[in-house]
């Protein structure tokens, strides 16, 4: 067992973990952060995507011991003062989810994507989400949602919105 100290969704945890424990299992099984899910065992599907120190990672590809001293944000930590993150809101507004299983990972990856390129075109969004699989939507509304969120997260637009809403990956 190795002791780790980690901040997850704004809360500090100190835990002893097995060296082989994956971050996603630590989040789900130890912390009860079941909003983050497992969709595969080969890091192809992206359903487990979270933010590690502000960048998206597939939490099935990170050991819990590797996040010692780090800050993790999951889908459960995006709401600020009762307000949805603009990306969550955009997924709802654009019907970008059906069963919703890929959605947490998809939203976390989409936020990261806008951190890299706050003003992407459709193709950039499609390529930026390539590591996240969805079986329900055909992606069209996901792409639409990300473009919508990008528009709403632009500084000029954001200035008119409550400043307490978290920005994306920036």
């Amino acid at each position: 067992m190795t002791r780790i100290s980690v901040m997850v969704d704004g809360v500090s945890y100190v835990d002893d973990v097995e060296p082989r424990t994956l971050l996603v299992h630590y989040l789900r099984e130890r912390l009860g952060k079941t909003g983050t899910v497992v969709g595969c065992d080969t890091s192809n599907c992206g359903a487990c995507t979270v933010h590690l120190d502000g960048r998206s990672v597939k939490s099935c590809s990170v050991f819990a011991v590797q996040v010692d001293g780090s800050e993790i944000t999951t889908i459960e930590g995006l709401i600020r003062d009762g307000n949805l993150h603009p990306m969550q809101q955009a997924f709802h507004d654009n019907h970008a989810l059906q069963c919703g299983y890929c959605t947490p990972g998809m939203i976390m990856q989409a936020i990261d994507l806008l951190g890299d390129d706050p003003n992407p075109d459709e193709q950039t969004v499609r390529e930026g989400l390539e590591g996240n699989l969805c079986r329900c939507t055909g992606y069209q509304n996901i792409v639409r949602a990300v473009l919508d969120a990008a528009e709403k997260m632009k500084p000029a637009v954001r200035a008119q919105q409550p400043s307490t809403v978290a920005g994306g990956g920036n």
Partner: protein
Amino acid sequence: MTATQPVTGELGKARRRKEDARLITGRTRWTDNITLPGMLHMAVVRSPLAHAKITAINTDAARELPGVLGVFTATDLGADSISLPCAWQITPDMKSPKAPPLAVDTVHFAGEGVAVVVARDAASAADAVSAVEVDYDELPPVLDMEAALADGATLVHPDLGTNRNALWVFDSAEAGSGGDVEQAIRDAEVVVKRRFHQQRLIPAFMEPRSVVVDPTGEQLTMWSATQVPHILKTMASLTLGVPEHKVRVIAPDVGGGFGGKLQVTPEETVTLLVARRMGKPVKWTETRSESLLAAHHGRDQIQDLTVAARRDGTVTGLKVELLADMGAYLRLVTPGIPILGAFMFNSIYKFPAYRFACTNVFTTKTPTDAYRGAGRPEATFAIERMMDELAVELGMEPLELRQRNWITHEEFPFATVAGLTYDSGNYEAATAKAKELFDYGGLRAEQRRRREAGDPVQLGIGISTYTEMCGLAPSRVLGALSYGAGGWEHASIRMLATGTVEVVTGVSPHGQGHETAWSQIIADKLGVPFEDVEVLHGDTQLSPKGMDTYGSRSLAVGGIAAVRAADKVIEKARKVAAHMLECSEADLEFAQGKFTIKGTDRGKTIQEVAFTTFAAHDLPEGMEPSLDSEATFDPENFSFPHGTHLCAAEVDTETGWVTITRYVCVDDVGTVVNPLIVEGQIQGGLAQGIAQALFEEATYDEGGTLTTGTLADYLVPSAADLPHFTTDRTETPATTNPLGVKGVGEAGTIASTPAVVNAVLDAVRHLGVTDIDMPCSPQRVWRAVQSARGAAKSTSDHTTEAAAGGGLGSIDAQGGAR
């Protein structure tokens, strides 16, 4: 009391979904999220071999590992005497092998469970799986359907004496619905014969399957990632002998199904047996690799079609001969899946003679069963490919050929050669709209330019004018097909004291948005606010009756049950309102949630009536103090969505790469409750149909091992692999239900596959390519073009088919992850 603003026009409104709030914030209730006190974890030891005798299972090492509480074989659990249910005896002489939930002495497919391990945590269970030693004597695998039917073939189940599961035949001359197809073929001016391969697919829902069984209560409770909690409950009782009233099944949040979770699985059964044995809650959650390997697959047919026609393009007969791969066992509806196609090969065309004969075959592969469309995509693919082949043979414009043969809108209701009655449709309108959105003429001109210029990137246009049968199903039809149950659906409505409403539905959503759509329907019927309706489902304790969700049935059957229940609520409320207003019931009209005395402004809202009924101080003589009502709806007919899909695809003849440059579909799914949800269903369906055309295939090596057992090998497309879709609708209401709805869950998948393949072939046909097997991977397309060019050089009059090649990214046609 709730505020009572009038509500109208909920139907057709693009409501954002109620379901989203929890799904976008991670407040989800997937089965694998469930943790119960004292819960144990189960993992399955699976056979790496396709066909083998089990000679020994040594569990000693596994039992000694820390945290392991038990290792069980079929015999240990008494599972050797259990056979998993198949609800569809398609012919009286159908051969049914015993299907124990764990292999007893022989394994019949790679991935079949051999033993299970129970441990304190999932990691310990996984460790123990690798410590179980199983010795096998290998037997020859049975992989090829035609070889499996040959004399002297290795038998998958020797006790059956054959690998033939059943032969199911429909003949229009015998049924009286049409002529004799052999005569039509003899008399034909043109006969076109083709063979198509429907490759094996994997549903690949995003949420891996998971089961939790708690045996500690009075009722045994099973949570499962299933589409069919009600069927599962009944089948658990019939299969395991647990009294039905002692079982409660809950489908909590379920992450997609696409037919893949329309099943009573070995793992559900074994989890239940183990939980009872241990006296503790037990959870099993599969890995993705297990899911791809052992959850049921779909499609997998060899299709031989013969079309007879006149020179002017009028079709005169259609003969369909299928071989359908059952895999190693019959699961819940395995043998009936290809039979659902029997009614759809004739599609929208007026074939005067038709024969369908399907031979179901056992192999040592993963069992097949429902996958989105289930029999109908296979049929639609084959007939739409054939219409293009016939057009080529006759030198006709493929869309004109279709138009010459389709049922015109004046001809409905239309009795088809397959024995169904299509109630409504307008193929002309959908096609006209699609052509316009697509710029059909412009793209044909562009195609000509590229052909004449010898452009290395050629353009193809693919057409698919389809119909499908939805709303499974009229119980009398299911009875005639020897299905083991009916096709009705149930709903009940509870009018709460404060005027809000609970709708209980027997369908079981797993991504479809029923909570939103049913809220719209009931808000519209009862005139209550959308927000005041709560839709409850997926728990047999609160939703006691249901047939669950599959076959695009939920709205067309389950939604209508809810409408009928609402009608009964209104009739009960009318009595109370008349009593409150001291008028006769006949004097009341009900609109926008209010009973009003005709010609006056005096009235009572349904919320006021609900509270008066709750108080029950002063009700009409003999009236029970309740407005609650239930209804069970059995449809009189299927519904028949249709549409026209047009695909433009560029084919790089130097690399074989296919790029869809434009995709237009105009679907007619009847009346629309929520256009946002309908569009989403179409788009998602398109993705799966396009994936069959271009990307996905479950392949086995010569030893019978699945070589596409991860999402790195089984190519579920990503956002970068798919085009933008232009979707639109025409709206011809179904005449067989009061909402005029038809169902939309499968349309996109059914229609899109042939549109894409027709486009790919249309791009390279002038080079001499006549067919390319699905998926049309770059390798297969490139090989087809190369061999056509080679053939054109050696024998100028001979064209060629593409050899089976690999999937995206494959290098060696024989190898590994094809």
